[in-house]
């Protein structure tokens, strides 16, 4: 515990003189606790990738948005398990993009919000088991991609998807994913409003604690489809 002269911490007692029911002085002990909690409030506007580590692929910056294909990890780690990542939507293209939280440094194990755009827009909760969790497209080109990727053992589908929910999403909306540590629930939001997409998870199914509080983005998950692109990103302890 800290050395704070004026603040007795738990275990130290500061007697308090109060008046009893018959005017008799009574000593009552009180305990004073002080807690100190660092919290990260990180942000990036995708001017460049200087605040990011490329974990996989070749992500790029296009028109002030994260683009290309790849997985990037933010260079600052959250200080608590109760971390929230958000992205402001800059464009909405067919494909998939993931906002990653609770990741290890190599982004091998994590939770994520997957934003998928097809005929409709859906949110899903993703449990990731590998940074190379990127799908290839079907057809000849897709087969060629698959061959290429499998040759280098970098594309292996190793995620599981839960609680897919149709949402309405527009440019400039802010999408968020939060690990609610108190209830061990992954929650998702659009402009701060909860969506129907959430998932209670086992507390120990992926590691938590220091070293497992990284955030990231997986961009261009479906080959040849850009997916949702973000113009800015925030990562914070909630």
């Amino acid at each position: 515990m800290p050395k704070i002269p004026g603040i007795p911490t738990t275990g130290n007692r500061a007697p308090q003189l109060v008046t009893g029911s018959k005017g008799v002085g009574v000593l009552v002990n009180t305990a004073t606790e002080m807690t100190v909690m660092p919290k990260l409030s990180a942000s990036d506007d995708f001017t460049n990738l200087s605040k990011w580590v490329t974990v996989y692929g070749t992500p790029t910056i296009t028109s002030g948005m994260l683009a290309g294909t790849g997985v990037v990890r933010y260079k600052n780690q959250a200080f608590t398990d109760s971390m929230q990542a958000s992205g402001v939507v800059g464009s909405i293209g067919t494909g998939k993009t993931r906002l990653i939280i609770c990741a290890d440094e190599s982004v091998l194990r994590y939770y994520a919000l997957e934003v998928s755009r097809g005929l409709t827009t859906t949110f899903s909760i993703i449990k990731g088991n590998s940074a190379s969790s990127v799908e290839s497209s079907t057809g000849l080109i897709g087969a060629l991609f698959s061959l290429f990727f499998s040759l280098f053992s970098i594309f292996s589908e190793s995620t599981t998807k839960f609680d897919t929910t149709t949402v309405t999403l527009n440019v400039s909306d802010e999408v968020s994913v939060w690990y609610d540590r108190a209830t061990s629930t992954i929650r998702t939001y659009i402009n701060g409003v909860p969506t129907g997409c959430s998932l209670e998870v086992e507390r120990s199914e992926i590691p938590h604690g220091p070293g497992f509080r990284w955030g990231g983005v997986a961009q261009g998950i479906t080959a040849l489809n850009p997916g949702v692109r973000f113009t800015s990103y925030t990562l914070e302890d909630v």
Partner: protein
Amino acid sequence: MTLKAAVLNAQCSAATALFDTASLHTADPAGTGANEDPAVDQAALTWSAPSNGVSTATATFSDVSGDWVAVGLWNSSTFEGSFPRTISMAVADDLTVAFQVRVAEDA
């Protein structure tokens, strides 16, 4: 004996009045506030009015990067103590340190 909230609040206010700024330290501050990071300005603390013996404050260190091992507390220019905290920020971002003082009747 049960203390009234007003008694706990008074003691809480007396405690929080001791601290008006916070600092970040790259090595042990010891008893003097040593090793304060010269690149990081001290951050002001504004304490909430105590309620049921609890008061909170936040210190915001804007756009900082580095590695620190302790958070220091000051009363004007007087060092009042520190808390060991390992804080590492590889790139410049805002760092908020949340403080809470809680006074309770000791069972």
